[in-house]
């Protein structure tokens, strides 16, 4: 009997596999963009190790591109770090929503998994399909999804840092559109089911565009998200 895995173990290993499967689209989306990042970083005179280390411990695409570009332009350390902070502040809001799903996890799991919150992992975890939240949101499922995405980013950086520039820029553009495809594909089905969520999303788009006219994109996204989500307080009738 002892050699037989318990129900709990079977459940958590299949949860892990489900998480990995759910994370694969992000892996595929990240990989070519990370190759472009690795290439850019090495061109900016970072060593291969530094480029890979950045992807390993920062794991935030847009800010890594910006950071390396600033490094290339001769910006100071404080300037680069401050810009990174403001660019990634939106993850605070996203982390609220993700941590809301992790209420029943241990503190260690929450601290560990929070590291992997990106625009894309957040989007999949909160709006991914077949969503029976309380059932599916186990640490194993989330770790599978998030670490799969992470590996796409880190391995792509490692590959890009080796052979500078073997992915043509057109492909990088097309793959970036693919990540927008991920966002749109996750947003449309629930927005169709509930008009309120569609209204919130469209309001946020308009607000973000308007705010972007007189502040930088990082702040515009944070403020648009905070205020447009505030519409939900008025629009959502049932107690949640």
């Amino acid at each position, binding site marked *: 009997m002892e050699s037989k895995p318990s129900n709990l173990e079977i459940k958590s290993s299949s949860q892990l596999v489900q998480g990995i499967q759910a994370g*694969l*689209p992000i892996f595929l989306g990240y990989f070519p963009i990370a190759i472009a990042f690795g290439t850019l970083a090495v061109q900016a005179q970072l060593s291969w190790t530094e480029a890979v280390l*950045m992807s390993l*411990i920062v794991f935030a695409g847009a*800010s890594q591109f910006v*950071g390396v570009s600033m*490094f290339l332009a001769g910006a100071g*350390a404080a300037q*680069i770090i401050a810009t990174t*902070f403001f660019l*990634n*502040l*939106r*993850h*605070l*809001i*996203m*982390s*609220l929503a993700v941590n*809301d799903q992790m*209420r029943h996890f241990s*503190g260690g799991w929450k*601290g560990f998994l929070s590291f992997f*919150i990106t*625009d894309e992992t*957040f*989007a*999949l975890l*909160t*709006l*991914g399909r077949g969503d029976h939240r309380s059932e599916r949101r186990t640490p194993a499922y989330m770790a599978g999804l998030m670490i799969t995405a992470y590996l796409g980013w880190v391995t792509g950086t490692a590959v890009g840092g080796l052979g500078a520039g073997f992915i043509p820029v*057109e*492909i990088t*553009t097309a793959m970036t*559109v*693919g*990540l*927008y*495809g*991920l*966002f*749109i*594909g996750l*947003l*449309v*089905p*629930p927005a169709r089911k509930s008009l309120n*969520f569609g209204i*919130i*999303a469209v309001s946020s*788009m308009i607000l973000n565009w308007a705010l*972007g006219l007189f502040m930088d994109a990082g702040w515009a*996204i944070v403020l648009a*998200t*905070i205020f*447009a*989500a505030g519409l939900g*307080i008025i629009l*959502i009738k049932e107690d*949640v």
Partner: protein
Amino acid sequence: MKVLLVIVGMALVTYIPRLLPALFLDRFQFPAWFRKWLQSIPYAALGALIFPGVLLVEKDQPLLGLAGGLMAFLLSLLNLHITLVMAGSILIVILLQYFFF
């Protein structure tokens, strides 16, 4: 050495905002309005991430991003799997780049 410091600094200021909700979220029982706000965040955040960013994937060619976004929109109306939605938007952009841009 300086590069290493910058990378570690970037890592810290990126992780701290991600970590904060893990530290305090479950210590409070939030009122109903806050829970509604929390529930609305994914829709608001995705809206803001999509627009106008999708138009800027190729700075001089906003139509390219628009075409990819519209394709994703149409495919997601068909309730296709997310990977197919992504593939469709990538494919239309590659085709447009090849023939027009």
